[in-house]
């Protein structure tokens, strides 16, 4: 049996489709359980948002009491903080349980499915002997890549959902607290309604835009780096799997793959250095920008100290939600690379299966 296809040349769309065909088995076969878990996870995200809003309000009331030097109100706020903090902690732990339970079950279902295909009719032996370019190192793909490919979508989609509803909710907070501001420039007065909302959109746009500008190669570089790491492992495994020909070609290939890994690592390093300028700058600037936008209203007495801290906190929350894509750049790249590797293994196994059906006697 000859496996002639070079799977490294299969397109992105085809790879995702092949991955999803096997990965979606879990979602299709255990519908009731899956729907229950999704509803539970969404409910946890919504409750977390509720607690976040209550903490934001608590922040306002606490600082207002502090500004008034009102000991009684401060004591009430201190007592309120305990149940809020407890709820936040319990919800965070519940969310971890829910997410990891979903990930564990999905990983189990996909791993069992791939293992079955790999072990059936000793396909693992034929896959090793007729090594298909792009399906090297199947053990690693089954153990690590399936885990990454099933972990990330759950974390990423929950974080995405959370970011959207958090942004919308805190837009409301910023709109109502900030109100409008009148700006006078060159003798012309202009009133901007909900100016904090516009402020956060402009600031987040600048941060995300800078991140895309500085790090637009990052996902590609991470994907290539992960792929070259996998090829390096496969080149090292070749010594073990085919001990009779420990020749110069293998040594040459091993050194070439190591060199590729190191070159990609060097580029990854520079990409991270570039994006760190933006991400670290944002960590420092985001809270300060929030404060500075509110200061004019605070100084005129249109905003209390509590509202100032509440708005600044809401500004940071919305800004962080806006940066979902930027924050998850690396995770998305890792996920894409793992999906590619699982899909190429599945395509190689499909080829084995098709060849078995064409000539069953040779199996």
């Amino acid at each position, binding site marked *: 049996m000859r496996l002639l296809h070079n799977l490294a040349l299969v397109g992105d769309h085809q790879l995702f489709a092949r991955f999803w065909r096997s990965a979606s088995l879990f979602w299709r076969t255990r519908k009731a359980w899956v729907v229950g878990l999704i509803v539970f996870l969404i409910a946890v995200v919504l409750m977390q948002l509720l607690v976040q809003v209550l903490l934001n309000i608590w922040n306002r009331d606490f600082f207002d009491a502090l500004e008034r030097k009102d000991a009684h109100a401060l004591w009430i706020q201190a007592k309120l903080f305990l149940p809020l903090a407890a709820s936040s902690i319990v919800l965070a732990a519940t969310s971890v349980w829910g997410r990891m339970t979903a990930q564990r079950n999905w990983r189990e279902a996909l791993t069992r499915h791939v293992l079955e295909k790999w072990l059936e009719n000793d396909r693992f032996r034929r896959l090793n002997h007729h090594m298909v370019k792009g399906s090297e190192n199947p053990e690693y793909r089954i153990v690590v890549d399936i885990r990454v490919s099933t972990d990330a979508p759950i974390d990423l989609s929950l974080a995405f959902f959370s970011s959207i509803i958090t942004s919308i909710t805190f837009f409301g907070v910023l709109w109502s607290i900030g109100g409008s501001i009148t700006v006078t420039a060159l003798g012309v007065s202009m009133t901007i309604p909900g100016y904090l909302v516009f402020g956060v959109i402009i600031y987040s746009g600048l941060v995300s835009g800078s991140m895309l500008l500085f790090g637009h190669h990052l996902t590609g*570089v991470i994907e290539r780096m992960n792929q070259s790491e996998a090829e390096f492992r496969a080149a090292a495994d070749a010594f073990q799997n085919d001990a009779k020909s420990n020749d110069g070609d293998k040594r040459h290939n091993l050194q070439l793959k190591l*060199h*590729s890994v190191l070159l990609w690592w060097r580029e990854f390093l520079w990409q991270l250095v570039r994006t760190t300028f933006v991400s670290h700058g944002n960590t420092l600037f985001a809270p300060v920008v929030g404060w500075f936008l509110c200061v004019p209203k605070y100084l005129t007495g249109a905003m209390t100290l509590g509202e100032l801290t509440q708005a600044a906190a809401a500004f940071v929350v919305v800004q962080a939600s806006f940066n979902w894509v930027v924050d998850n750049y690396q995770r998305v790249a890792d996920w894409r690379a793992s999906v590619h590797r699982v899909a190429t293994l599945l395509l190689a196994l499909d080829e084995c299966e098709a060849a078995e059906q064409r000539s069953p006697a040779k199996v």
Partner: protein
Amino acid sequence: MKRILVASDGSPDAERAVDAAARLAKDGRCELVILTVGGSITGAELRALAGKSGDLSKTLETAARTVLAKARKRALRIGAPSVREMTAWGEAAEAINDAARREKADILVVGRRGRGRLSGLLLGSVSQKVTALAPCPVMVVP
């Protein structure tokens, strides 16, 4: 003298080294081994590869093969009787000395300066490092 090892990265200095080594091989009727240490690629080239379905290993191998083919042509034109090519990866000076050791070269020929002119100025050139640690006599071609 049985075997001469010459290192080339395709730079003008390396080409002069190949010429000198080929003349030596011709006069001494010995084997000429041309070595290139592959892997020199810029960040811009890497980023371009990251954006499409390019294969870095293949790119590196092609670049190394091009350097070797050019050097081989030069050596044969000068009259070297037997030419063999090889590629190594990693830090240039270390890889050149390793190859000289493995190939049991009687003499090692290198150019004075390769492509890494700036790093050569800062850290010392590859030829300086090779000379310091070589397992055999070294001829540095100016």
